[in-house]
């Protein structure tokens, strides 16, 4: 009698579970092949903020806009060399100030309007109308007084010819134009939708925007009339699954086909599974621990910073990356031109570190804080764990580290205001130019409290001169020389503990073929195919 209730309950539960579980199995298959359509379901951790690439900086927005928009020029599939896109040809005047672009005459926007030189002018002008166009301001030095920055004027010199005049030479200019934020939008759609344009994006790219369900999914469909390589899959659904572990389980269950943000711990599981594959994105990033040289105290002493570099066992530290990271010794990744491989990393040597500390007057060590953030970043999959590991290592040289963990936004505010002693941060390159690493992250121009990119607040005139010279130099060999020297200066002064360059892993179903992840963090999916 008594047991009967329990059995009844168990039976009901079992029935419900089995009824449900078989549905998940069957739907997975239905989802992929309904009507012979090839649908790629892409799993990621957060939703896009806006689908207007000129206004956003988050990778999740760029992931989608990369499918919808084209830029004047674009990057090669595997590196940041520049090739033709909407522009077929270009040249620059001898003084490096006037760039002329020849445009394609066979391109239509997704809304059916024709693409021509006027549309390019429209877009450039639009980007100077408000501070909301973050990347424009940041790449071209726009300010409230001068919204154009180094771009003096943009004019249509023919139906399919555009001329851009700069106020000073800018070596990375072409590379910069290939960045996704400078995707060309349909002027008609921009005007029609006004403030709502960000949810009704219209470009010329390989996929056409279809639907956006906030925090859930974004769907784009194949553009049959694409001027480049027409996409092989019919539809891409970007699905938000916030938790890394849960997203991986969805991949294992077959309900998604491709995912970013894999927990490093899950790599071995994926590698052991025949139905899955790991695809590594080439590295163009750096993770580092900045030491605030501006604060009075031990960190303002170069010897202390060097000692910290020697006290950290990077080989062990890198083990925490579970095979997706390489030890860093320079601020720029080895894949970038201008990388100085002659620099010898500080050796892991506790005794030498102690000696240096003693020399600086800190034989008994000191107390210090280390700011870290809670959410994993592509260059640092386990920020909290990495912080603990470093803290424990520094104990050996009597440096007592207190860890302060904040959410990402707070972390940025704290560090740019210089409220930290030591802090983790990292950088993913935007345009494949060393300037985009060293000037942004280590020049004294960017060490202003309140908006610092240089959160070590490292101010070296020697470095500044080198970086400034490299910015206006148009000859690549000469620029390389300057950057090689710049890295030596940085190494000697040790404002950072460079930690790692990662190859952020993507996990995919083994049916995914011809997928080439781009070092800048995202890419159009038109080359990607799905096999049976």
């Amino acid at each position: 009698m008594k047991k009967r209730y329990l059995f009844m309950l168990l039976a009901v539960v079992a029935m419900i579970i089995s009824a449900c579980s078989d549905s998940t199995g069957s739907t997975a298959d239905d989802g992929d092949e309904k009507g012979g359509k090839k649908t790629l379901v892409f799993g990621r951790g957060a939703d896009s903020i806006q689908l207007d690439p000129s206004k956003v900086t988050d990778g999740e927005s760029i992931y989608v806009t990369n499918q919808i928009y084209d830029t004047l020029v674009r990057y090669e599939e595997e590196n940041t060399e520049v090739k033709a896109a909407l522009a077929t040809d270009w040249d620059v005047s001898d003084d490096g100030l006037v760039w002329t672009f020849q445009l394609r005459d066979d391109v239509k926007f997704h809304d059916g309007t024709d693409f021509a030189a006027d549309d390019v002018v429209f877009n450039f002008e639009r980007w100077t109308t408000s501070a909301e166009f973050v990347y424009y301001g940041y790449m071209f030095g726009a300010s409230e007084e001068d919204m154009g920055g180094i771009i003096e004027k943009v004019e249509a010199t023919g139906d399919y010819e555009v001329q851009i005049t700069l106020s000073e030479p800018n070596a990375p200019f072409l590379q910069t134009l290939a960045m996704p934020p400078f995707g060309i939008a349909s002027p008609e759609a921009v005007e029609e939708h006004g403030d709502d344009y960000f949810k009704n994006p219209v470009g010329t790219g390989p996929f056409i925007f279809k639907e956006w369900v906030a925090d859930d999914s974004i769907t784009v469909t194949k553009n049959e009339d694409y001027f480049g390589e027409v996409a092989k899959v019919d539809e891409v659904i970007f699905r938000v699954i916030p938790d890394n572990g849960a997203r991986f389980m969805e991949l294992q269950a077959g309900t998604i086909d491709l995912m970013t943000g894999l927990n490093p711990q899950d790599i071995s599981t994926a590698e052991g599974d025949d139905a899955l594959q790991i695809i590594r994105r080439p590295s163009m990033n750096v993770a580092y621990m900045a030491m605030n040289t501006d604060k009075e105290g031990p960190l303002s002493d170069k010897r202390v910073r060097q000692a910290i570099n020697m006290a950290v066992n990077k080989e062990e530290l890198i083990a925490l990356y579970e095979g997706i990271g390489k030890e860093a010794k320079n601020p720029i990744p080895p894949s970038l031109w201008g990388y100085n491989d002659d620099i010898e990393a500080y050796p892991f040597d506790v005794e030498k570190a102690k000696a240096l500390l003693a020399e600086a007057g800190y034989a008994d060590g000191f107390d210090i804080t280390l700011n870290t953030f809670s959410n994993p970043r592509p260059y640092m999959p386990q920020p909290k764990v990495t912080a603990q590991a470093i803290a424990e290592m520094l104990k050996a040289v009597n440096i007592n580290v207190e860890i302060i963990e904040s959410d990402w936004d707070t972390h940025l505010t704290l560090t740019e205001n210089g409220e930290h002693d030591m802090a983790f941060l990292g950088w993913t390159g935007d345009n494949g130019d060393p300037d985009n690493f060293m000037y942004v992250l280590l020049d004294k121009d960017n060490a202003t409290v309140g908006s610092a990119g240089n959160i070590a607040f490292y101010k070296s005139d020697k470095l500044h001169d080198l970086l400034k010279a490299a910015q206006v130099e148009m000859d690549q060999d000469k620029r390389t020389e300057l950057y090689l020297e710049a890295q030596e200066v940085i190494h000697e002064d040790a404002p950072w503990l460079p930690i790692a360059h990662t190859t952020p892993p993507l996990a995919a179903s083994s049916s995914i073929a011809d997928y080439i992840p781009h070092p800048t963090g995202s890419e159009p999916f038109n080359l990607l195919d799905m096999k049976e």
Partner: protein
Amino acid sequence: MIKYISRRLLMLIPVLIGVSILAFSLIHLVPGDPARSILGEKATKDQLEALQEELGLNDPYYVQYGRFLGDILQGNLGESIQSKESIGVELIQKLPATIELAVFAMLVAVIVGVIAGVIAAVKQYSWFDNMSMTAALFGVSMPIFWLGLMMIWLFSVTFDILPPSGRLTAGVELHTITNFYLIDSILTGNWLAFKDSLSHILMPGLALATIPMAIIARMTRSSMLEVMRQDYIRTANAKGLKKTIIIFQHALKNASLPVLTVIGLQFGLLLGGAVLTETIFSWPGIGRYVYLAVLGRDYPVVQSTILIIAIIFVLVNLITDILYKYLDPRIKFE
């Protein structure tokens, strides 16, 4: 009765104003800058200042609060500063997700809890009584986020029979009407979507049901015992009525009062307390929505959503109070 309800509704006004002030001041006290969290690490100081001005963040607090209150009174919940989406539109998506989860959890809790409680009381000191009351004690002591993770480990990782996250498998099409997926799939006769969304709600629903289930089982048992000892049940018993009829007609009706109170209180907790469950199961509801808004300094989202949750909470409480009085004629409406 109408007088009582209108008096209670009137008393809610100061409470809700208090909630809105508390929500407003707390979120504005959080250090950090919404402009920075929108523009990211690559924005310049100029861009930040321009955006702060545009968002009205430089106005005095009382002006900002006044604006918020004015909007609310016109039925305008404002716009998320992160996504630029109207909060009303977002809540139409997310509120049903949370309510569906909470109602599902409450149904499980009430059905299992009441049945277990009644049986335990009728068979006092029996094997079932001991087992279920121990289980109930375990239930109230359970960290539900841990329980959720363990369920995922067991049912999704080890046995791979339930989906670990979300409300619906990607690719399963569902025409939404109410945004309650279980209801929508029934309304549209979409059996596949029904099974799929049921399989998704099962784990988070059970995890969330644990604590109220345990409390309801214990309350039902003790109030049943009290009622069963009373004279009229003994009389009924003596009259030779069938035992089951006695239990269900008399005892259960009386025992329903305390249980109702628990349901009212717990339902409010389920709404707000779903933060952890929604985080673990990636359930796109309002708990997670507000939590992320706090982290992203999305002032309007935090203010409006907390106010909405508070309104639901106080209304649910009011309804339970009214039902309570309706079911128990001994209590008078003052």
